[in-house]
């Protein structure tokens, strides 16, 4: 709205903001102020509502009272019809903010008797405008006059005059017109109202209806030229100008956990970027939802708000199923951090989905949005539409710094990569889950196909759903590729036993050395004792020898004494000799 007002002041052409969500953005400020605008379209495309919302918003938000001149529905019908959209007309009428005037033209009551004009209608409208100081006028659908008044020449001249008169009055007018065969309106009103023409469209493709709005012409102003989807719900009209979003959103360096530690480790140990778009794709029953649920749980634990769109399961079923792998989501729902939004994708058209997504995101203001799965949109040959839908959702979420996680079911027949190719460019982090069929088993493998802005792991990891969540197992590469399941377990056992044997061998070696050392020491000891005994023997012999020598001397002396050959003295003399 701010932007719209700013534009109004900048532009030479003054504009009158409609207050209709999104419309003021595509018209850079609203309808041309003080000029008539033609709103045309087929039956039931929302022309009356557009006009009514223009008036109601004008009266409530911009303090511009308005006159609604209806040529089809009477006042009571109008009040009831728009009450279902949250407009309390009765109060506005009471407070002189809006005047309803039902112009009833009944052909059977009218007799043309000559020249006439529609001056009475002018007076009537002028009176209504002046009675509340109206700035806005809606004529819905003035073409009904053609049915009531037979003289077309007069009517056409008078309509031309009427639109001129409205311009002179300075009121911003919305004139609705039924769509014609080859012209924008059945009676060619576009000839008279040439300042701004808006076309509403309501078409049904593949049994789902899509409402679209296009600014055909806007004299003196820039405007978006695309067909914009719009939505009519209990809060009124909303146009989604999301295709106009550029790639100029702010990016965050913050990383948030995926809820699975091993997966975080694969993503540089930190997880996804905040505000990025994560796609989890894989075949049926591979655990996409489990990964999404992990992410949701982790986010709730951080105190963030999560909006979970489930298109295949009911919230209760999903919560029950996730409980089986140990993810408790229910407490977070009760706390109000997690909100499920379950609906069948076929319930509305794609545009409606977009609109509904917008609405819920704006209401709930989540930090994380999960769409599970996006493949269900892909019914029939709507590839382009699906892509633009996703692109718009992604753009919208990115601008709001919301991290998005999509799951996508891929069919087994075609290669996973190619089936997702149309959205791959929109995705920042892409996790691929695939089943690996080997040894008569089907096991789950996961790898990161891409992850923008981080050095992610290139490993294919086996992932297992346990009763405490998703677990990523280490990878074994065998002769025929990655080993999974029982092959992996066998490999694990093999490696374990190898380790054991090796340990055993080391143990053996150690023991042998110890034994050898002991043997050596024993030998050394015997040698030492042998030597010791020899040594002591030798000493003994030496002593004995000495003893012997002594004794011999003694014996000599004693013999001499006994022979009395010599005295003791002699003997000593002899000895001296």
């Amino acid at each position, binding site marked *: 709205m701010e932007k719209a007002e700013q534009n109004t002041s900048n532009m030479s052409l003054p504009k009158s903001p409609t207050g209709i969500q999104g419309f003021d953005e595509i018209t850079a400020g609203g309808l041309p102020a003080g000029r008539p605008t033609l709103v045309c379209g087929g039956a039931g495309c929302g022309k009356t509502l557009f006009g009514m919302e223009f008036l109601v918003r004008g009266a409530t938000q911009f303090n511009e009272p308005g006159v609604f001149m209806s040529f089809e529905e009477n006042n009571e019908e109008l009040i009831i019809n728009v009450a279902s959209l949250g407009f309390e007309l009765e109060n506005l009428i009471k407070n002189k903010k809006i005047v309803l005037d039902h112009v009833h033209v009944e052909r059977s009551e009218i007799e043309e008797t000559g020249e006439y004009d529609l001056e*009475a209608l002018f007076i009537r409208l002028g009176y209504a405008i002046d009675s509340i100081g109206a700035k806005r006028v809606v004529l819905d659908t003035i073409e009904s006059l053609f049915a009531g008044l037979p003289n077309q020449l007069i009517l056409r001249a008078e309509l031309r005059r009427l639109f001129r008169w409205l311009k002179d009055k300075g009121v911003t007018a919305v004139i609705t017109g039924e769509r014609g065969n080859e012209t924008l309106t059945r009676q060619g009103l576009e000839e008279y109202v040439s300042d701004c023409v808006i076309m509403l469209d309501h078409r049904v493709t593949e049994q789902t209806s899509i409402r679209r709005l296009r600014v055909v012409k806007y004299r003196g102003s820039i405007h978006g030229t695309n067909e914009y989807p719009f939505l009519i719900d209990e809060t009124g009209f909303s146009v989604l100008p999301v295709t106009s979003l550029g790639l100029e959103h702010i990016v965050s360096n913050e990383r948030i956990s995926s809820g699975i530690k091993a997966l975080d480790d694969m993503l540089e140990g930190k997880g996804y970027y905040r505000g990025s778009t994560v796609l989890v794709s894989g075949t049926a029953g591979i655990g996409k939802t489990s990964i999404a649920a992990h992410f949701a749980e982790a986010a709730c634990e951080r105190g963030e708000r999560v909006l979970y769109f489930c298109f295949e399961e009911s919230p209760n079923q999903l919560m029950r199923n996730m409980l089986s792998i140990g993810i408790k989501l229910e407490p977070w729902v009760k706390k109000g951090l997690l909100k499920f939004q379950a609906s069948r994708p076929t319930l509305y058209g794609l545009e409606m989905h977009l609109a509904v997504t917008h609405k819920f995101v704006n209401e709930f203001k989540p930090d994380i949005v999960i769409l599970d799965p996006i493949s269900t949109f892909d019914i029939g040959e709507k590839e382009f539409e699906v892509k633009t839908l996703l692109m718009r959702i992604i753009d919208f979420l990115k601008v709001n710094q919301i991290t998005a996680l999509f799951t996508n079911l891929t069919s087994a027949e075609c290669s996973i990569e190619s089936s997702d190719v149309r959205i791959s460019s929109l995705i920042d982090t892409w996790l691929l889950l695939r089943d690996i069929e080997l040894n008569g088993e089907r096991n789950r493998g996961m790898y990161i196909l891409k992850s923008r802005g981080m050095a992610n792991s290139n490993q294919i990891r086996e992932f297992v759903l346990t009763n405490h969540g998703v677990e990523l197992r280490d990878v074994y590469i065998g002769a025929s590729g990655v080993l999974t399941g029982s092959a992996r377990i066998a490999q694990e056992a093999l490696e374990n036993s190898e380790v054991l044997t090796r340990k055993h061998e080391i143990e053996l070696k150690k023991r042998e050395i110890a034994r050898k050392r002991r043997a050596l020491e024993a030998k050394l000891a015997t040698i030492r004792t042998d030597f010791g005994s020899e040594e002591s023997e030798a000493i003994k012999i030496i002593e004995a020898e000495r003893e012997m020598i002594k004794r011999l001397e003694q014996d000599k002396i004693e013999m001499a004494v006994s022979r009395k050959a010599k005295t003791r003295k002699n003997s000593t003399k002899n000895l001296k000799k």
Partner: protein
Amino acid sequence: MKDNKPKIKGPSDDFDLTLSKGYKDKYVLRLYITGTTSRSIQAISNLKKICQEYLEGRYELEVIDLFQHPGLAKDEQIIAAPTLIKKLPLPFRRIIGDMSNKEKVLLGLDLRELKNEKDAQ
């Protein structure tokens, strides 16, 4: 019919009553004009002539300028000018234009059939 059920008096009885009274009824006419344009003046004079010719003595004509009473345009569901409204006798009729086509005015006032009836009689 109405003689058979005199006790119940509904709108259709009024309608029957009105019809039975037929052309003797008083005409209540309102002519709405927008200022003194030539068309307005013409319409007034044309209408007066017709009234004098066919409804002498049993009509009530009121000429209203919508510029003076703009609120009436909404109340009376008028869009074209001049518009003549035949309030009575029923059925309710609007006759628009400057009343220059006399045949059509008579048709609108239910006076043409009347004339034919008279001729038939």
